[in-house]
């Protein structure tokens, strides 16, 4: 959160996650190289460099595919929330693997001539009008540059200085990087690999990412739109429909969404947009009396929308009321950090 500067904040959970991630990466590379060495077609001998190239290339593809499925899957099941919480570390690891892949490619295919490796990369194959012979390396380069920008700006320093809106827009470039990566693989490896397994793997991966994001976009647009009465009160629904320590998200006409939380017999409403990266607070839960963002764990007190000290973030609060068991929220937001006493559910029956 906003208190002080630390290069990387490793909580015990994040440290454990990173150890498992590094172990998984190492295991994949070793297994790939051992299996590929043992199953080489007769008459072909791959050098260690070529094996490393293939192992890192396939791993970067699989990791980026997995990263892009985390967001939509976390919206559908809470089992993926821990991955959402650690997605940035996965992203930086993916960029590092992709960078190693690119370095091996440059070394093996372009490093043995007098020509600069980058000139060789872009000028040795000018067949941009061909599909089967397309210089697919350039597409991989585009994806790598986007991943580099994202990895470099992944730290909260950049999020704080660029602002959450611009930072988020910049990091949506990952979708373009994935499209470039699919084209890189389809016009490269899939042109020479005859094994249908590769084709099926790429097709399933791309299909899963596209479908999950389309479904997720559809689900995200499904928050009930409430209409306000004369007093600007929006009906949220029966309090019994809101699970304890969770929220119901409603969309006021023309405004940002509101997250209405229920916790310990009380109702409180805040803006659904986290100050950190715009995460959907209403998909998070109440932990130790604080609304906790599902993306990176930023917290806000239910009673005033302020992060607990020493942190300084604030979000808008809203007036709430409960009448005959039905929750209402006032569509007019209070200034961020304004105290607003949570409504007592029991009191509504008095």
């Amino acid at each position: 959160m906003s208190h002080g500067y630390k290069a990387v904040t490793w909580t015990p959970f994040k440290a454990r996650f990173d150890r498992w991630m590094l172990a998984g990466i190492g295991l994949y590379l070793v297994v790939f190289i051992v299996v590929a060495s043992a199953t080489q077609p007769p008459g072909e001998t791959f050098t260690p460099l070529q094996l490393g190239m293939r192992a890192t290339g396939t791993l970067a593809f699989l990791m980026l595919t997995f990263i892009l499925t985390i967001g939509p899957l976390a919206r559908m099941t809470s089992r993926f929330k821990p991955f959402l919480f650690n997605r940035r570390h996965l992203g930086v690891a993916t960029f590092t693997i992709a960078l190693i892949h690119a370095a091996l490619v440059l070394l093996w295919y372009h490093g043995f001539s007098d020509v600069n490796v980058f000139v060789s990369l872009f000028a040795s194959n000018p067949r941009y009008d061909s599909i089967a012979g397309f210089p697919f390396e350039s597409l991989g380069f585009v994806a790598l540059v986007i991943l580099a920008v994202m990895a470099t700006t992944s730290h909260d320093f950049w999020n704080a200085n660029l602002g959450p809106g611009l930072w988020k827009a910049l990091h949506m470039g990952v979708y373009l990087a994935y499209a470039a990566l699919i084209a890189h693989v389809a016009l490269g490896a899939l042109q020479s690999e005859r094994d249908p397994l590769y084709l099926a793997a790429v097709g399933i991966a791309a299909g899963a990412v596209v479908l999950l994001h389309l479904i997720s976009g559809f689900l995200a647009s499904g928050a009930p739109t409430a209409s306000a009465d004369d007093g600007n009160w929006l009906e949220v629904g029966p309090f019994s429909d809101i699970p304890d320590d969770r929220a119901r998200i409603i969309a006021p006409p023309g405004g940002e969404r509101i997250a209405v939380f229920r916790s310990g017999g009380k109702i409180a409403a805040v803006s659904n947009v986290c100050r950190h990266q715009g995460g959907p607070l209403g998909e998070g839960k109440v932990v130790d009396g604080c609304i906790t963002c599902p993306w990176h764990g930023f917290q806000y007190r239910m009673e005033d929308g302020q992060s607990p000290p020493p942190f300084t973030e604030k979000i808008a609060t809203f007036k709430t009321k409960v009448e005959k068991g039905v929750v209402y929220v006032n569509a007019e937001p209070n200034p961020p950090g304004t105290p607003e006493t949570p409504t007592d559910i029991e009191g509504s029956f008095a």
Partner: protein
Amino acid sequence: MKRVHRSAHRMVWFLLAPAIAAVLWLAITNRPGPLVNDTLPPSIITDEAPN
């Protein structure tokens, strides 16, 4: 997520989905056949029995 980002996200995927499908389809349908070395001359050794 802010409304503007939700809209941008939906728009990006409605554009990228057909683009990715088109690239995959073009790549698959234009794959070269198995490599055949047609630069070699026809076989000069035959199994025909000598007269």
